[in-house]
């Protein structure tokens, strides 16, 4: 008896072929690019694109995260407000202290940047007290120099600022703030205690620490609209030349 030859289904074969072709096709681009760069007679130095961003306080770098050519991170962790008071100086509610925050592009590609600032009151253990008002911590924001406050993303505790121009590699943005002040109203938030002929006023905010946290985000300018949507989750409009953005 003649053995019946097992037939290979055409439909599946076609699908398999199509998939294989797609897979091969997807690699053609990079292969062609490799051939284009190849040369026996000349050596080409290709500079890797590295992104980096630094937070500056009163002109000094406080923290940064830069990627090196080997795609390794270089991180600097610093602390804000360490130079706010002079030696033996007491903090004075109501007084304006210099607090200029700006952002530097410490990579080698142009970027768009944003800053998220969070204000809070913390006790001695570093625990936030949400019953105390972050409104009393007043950072004076400067918005006539390219920075814009994203009102829809901003709360009493958190302020989100976008720099609307692309920051060129190595450049520093103008300051987004110039002064820090604690509303002197905190001196009126007191609890009065009278004992014999002694009056004691205990300040509600007296033993708390006002705290500021800053997060600086940077993203490439190339294809910035999609990149920002992907990285930050927000919709922005980007100019055709990718040098400026506006919030939607």
């Amino acid at each position: 008896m003649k053995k019946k030859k097992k037939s290979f289904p055409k439909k599946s074969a076609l699908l398999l072929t199509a998939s294989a072709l797609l897979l091969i096709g997807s690699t053609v681009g990079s292969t062609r690019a490799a051939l284009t760069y190849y040369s026996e007679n000349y050596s080409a130095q290709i500079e890797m694109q590295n992104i980096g961003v630094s937070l500056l306080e009163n002109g000094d770098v406080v923290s940064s995260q830069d990627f090196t050519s080997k795609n390794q991170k270089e991180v600097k962790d610093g602390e804000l407000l360490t130079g706010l008071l002079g030696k033996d100086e007491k903090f004075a509610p109501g007084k304006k202290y210099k607090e200029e925050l700006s952002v530097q592009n410490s990579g080698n590609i142009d970027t768009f940047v944003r800053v998220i600032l969070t204000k809070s009151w913390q006790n001695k253990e570093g625990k936030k007290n949400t019953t105390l008002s972050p409104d009393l911590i007043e950072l004076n924001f400067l918005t006539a120099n390219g920075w814009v406050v994203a009102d829809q993303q901003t709360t009493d505790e958190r302020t989100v600022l976008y720099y609307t121009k692309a920051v060129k590699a190595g450049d520093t943005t103008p300051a987004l703030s110039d002064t820090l002040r604690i509303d002197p109203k905190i001196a009126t938030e007191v609890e009065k205690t009278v004992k014999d002929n002694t009056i004691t006023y205990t300040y509600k905010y007296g033993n708390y620490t006002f705290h500021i946290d800053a997060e600086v985000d940077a993203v490439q300018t190339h294809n910035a609209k999609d990149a920002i949507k992907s990285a930050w989750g927000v919709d922005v409009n980007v100019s055709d030349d990718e040098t400026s953005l506006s919030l939607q």
Partner: protein
Amino acid sequence: MRKLHKKPLIMAAAALALTGTLAVGSAMAYFTTYTTAGGGVTMNMGFTETIPNETVDKDGKHVTITNTGDYDCFVRVTAFAPMELTYTAPNGGWKAEDDGYWHYEGVLPADETTPELNISYKFPEGKDKPEEFNIVVIQECTPVLYDENGNPYADWNHVITTETTEDSKTTE
């Protein structure tokens, strides 16, 4: 009925999945980075507490105010009695203001005491004079506030520390 061949279908699906993975990879390849920093300053206001110190002799009441609290303040003093009172500051530092109080001219830092404010009186004469009377001294303090340039000022409208000390009973 035709038999469904699973193997080629699985291979095809795997190839498609691989192709799809390549597409996802390129879409995610954006250059991004971030950095963070934080910091804080402790208010160290603690509390404000002022204690009047009084002695009485033939020259009247000798009043000083001590800030035993943690935070600097301004102080002022006035007194009430059934006769006319005279205020003098033998060592300076006090000044009469229009509000009827004598104000210590500077900021009274924590743990410091004002110079003396002397409150003297003339004992009543005649047959209607009382056998005894009280001189009530009132001292008030308010926490020091600062303007934008860091200059201290007092806001007596908002935080007024008021307490009456009534410990003087004087009989001639």
